[in-house]
């Protein structure tokens, strides 16, 4: 397979910049600080209660994973903000567009660059993550899952960032709008779920409704939420089920209501939360990639406006 020319060029340029090593240093320093604080807390507990609770060391993993996910989510719009506008400004975008390379290849080249940059950060932190290895509970399968989830998040945030870079000439508006879009997918969908679930529960209570099918469908409002993916997975690391399945089961744990077949199916479905969640995130990414490619395609864009 031929390596995308744009990716190759970006990596050559990137390898000569001192920004990257410096940024990686600070990234790892921050994660180290996190781990250190956790260790301090564990130690303090050990003295307070008298019995050393090493098991809480396993929480190093979820805390570091969450911290990293948040940093990646913030970092990616910054990395990608000038990826397209920078080329446009130099007019190198025009030159690229006169070559046989297709607009979508230019965009995916930029996306691949951002993902590789981000993974340099992630890989640099692996030794620290493996701290949690030493104290049970966490194994290499968890690490692979974590990397997979980071990959999905990077593709998702990266395509939003690159789309914004294709819309805005300046980096600051591109960063701000990317972050607003990102926040919408995290908090917007969460609020949509919270509000609709709240109203529905109220409605159920008022009308004395037994059937709970709707309340089992509502969590899927968060199927495009990257935070939901992290949450469901991390819950799974310490429990035998994901967070969505767990909360749904709780809903019925203390009720006398006999589950209908439909309800059982829906609860079971929530146990597979991660698969549709990942597929939808990748689907949304594809839409943003396509939109970005259309933005830089001079002929396509105009045609659309007229048609």
């Amino acid at each position, binding site marked *: 397979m*031929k390596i995308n*020319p744009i990716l*190759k*060029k970006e990596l*050559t*340029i990137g390898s*000569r*910049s001192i920004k990257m090593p410096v940024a990686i240093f600070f990234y790892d320093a921050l994660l180290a600080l996190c781990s250190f604080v956790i260790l301090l807390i564990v130690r303090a507990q050990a003295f307070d209660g008298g019995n050393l609770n090493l098991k809480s060391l396993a929480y190093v993993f979820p805390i570091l994973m969450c911290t990293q996910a948040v940093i990646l989510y913030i970092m990616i719009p910054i990395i990608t903000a000038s990826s397209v506008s920078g*080329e446009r400004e*130099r*007019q*190198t975008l*025009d*030159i*690229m*567009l*006169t*070559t*046989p*390379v297709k607009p979508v290849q230019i965009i995916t080249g930029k996306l691949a660059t951002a993902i590789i940059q981000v993974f340099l950060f992630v890989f640099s932190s692996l030794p620290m993550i493996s701290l949690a290895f030493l104290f049970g509970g966490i194994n290499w399968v968890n690490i692979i899952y974590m990397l997979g989830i980071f990959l999905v998040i990077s593709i998702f945030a990266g395509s939003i960032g690159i789309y914004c870079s294709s819309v805005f000439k300046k980096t600051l508006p591109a960063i701000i709008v990317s972050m607003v879009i990102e926040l919408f997918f995290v908090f917007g969908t969460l609020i949509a779920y919270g509000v609709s679930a709240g109203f529905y529960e109220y409605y159920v209570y008022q009308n004395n409704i037994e059937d709970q099918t709707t309340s089992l469908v509502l969590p899927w409002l968060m199927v495009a939420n990257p935070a939901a993916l992290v949450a469901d997975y991390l819950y799974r690391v310490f429990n035998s089920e994901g967070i969505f399945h767990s909360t749904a089961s709780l809903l019925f744990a203390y009720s006398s209501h006999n589950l209908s077949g439909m309800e059982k199916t829906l609860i079971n479905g929530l146990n597979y939360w991660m698969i549709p969640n990942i597929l939808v995130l990748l689907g949304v990414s594809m839409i943003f990639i396509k939109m970005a490619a259309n933005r830089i395609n*001079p*002929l396509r864009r*105009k*045609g659309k406006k007229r048609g």
Partner: protein
Amino acid sequence: MLKIDGLTKYYGKFLALDHLNLEIEKGEIFGFVGPNGAGKTTTMKIVCGLLNPTSGQVYINGVDALKDAQSLKRKIGYVPDFFGVYDNLKAMEYMEFYASMYGLEGKAAKETCLGLMDLVNLSDKTDSYVDGLSRGMKQRLCLARSLVHNPDLLILDEPASGLDPRARFEMKEILKNLKEMGKTIIISSHILPELAEMCSSVGIMKKGKLVLHGQVDEILEQAKNANPLKIDLIDKKEEAIMFMKENPKVKNLSIRDNSLILAFDGDDFEIYELMKAFVERQIPIRGIHREEGNLETLFIEVTAEGEK
């Protein structure tokens, strides 16, 4: 080779190209001249498939460039009016990057790139960082870059602007070589003399329209009437000036030593009439003649028309 037919482009309500017609033969170096904002860049971008026209057609070797843009990409080399540099990229890497965009990789790419760097006299700069090169070198590198896929048609937007005379000379030599290689070249400039010597034909553009178009020597012929008339006097300068000021066909009268320089809107016969009048009035003159054909004055005249 290239045929532009009724090309019109609106930017919003602003008319940038107004039913432009143009035909360029294979092997020509075509100079595309016009003041800033005339629409040269717009035309070039449309031909390269970087911009959609509002209406009109572009054909390259008989292929509709607007419908079949993708298939023409391997036939056109384009150098935009702004030189794009990447920080931290060496000249050779810059070349190889564009070669790889045309699917050229490895040894074949290296050879092609080295050959082109040699063609533009940059063989000794392959390992230099692009942003460290001089303006003229960057311009030549950009030219070499546009040749990586061996295109038939080269489109160069203001390649000579901002270059010192030496760099401009080198550029001209390279273009001559390219012409000998059988390439068709379109060069734009807002300064005509910059182009006149290296072009086989020129088109003068103004406000989205082609106001003059033809072989350079033909245009020079046409330019004749636009050139100033020089009247060499022996004596009676004051009288001669008075006489000329009365003549309605005379404009922009100026005096240089013992000569009058003036714009005279008349053909050779009218110049003869003028001579007779001088003789009748007994103003001694040594001769009257048109100054040499000069594209620059023509350019200024043509593009200034109707702007008053």
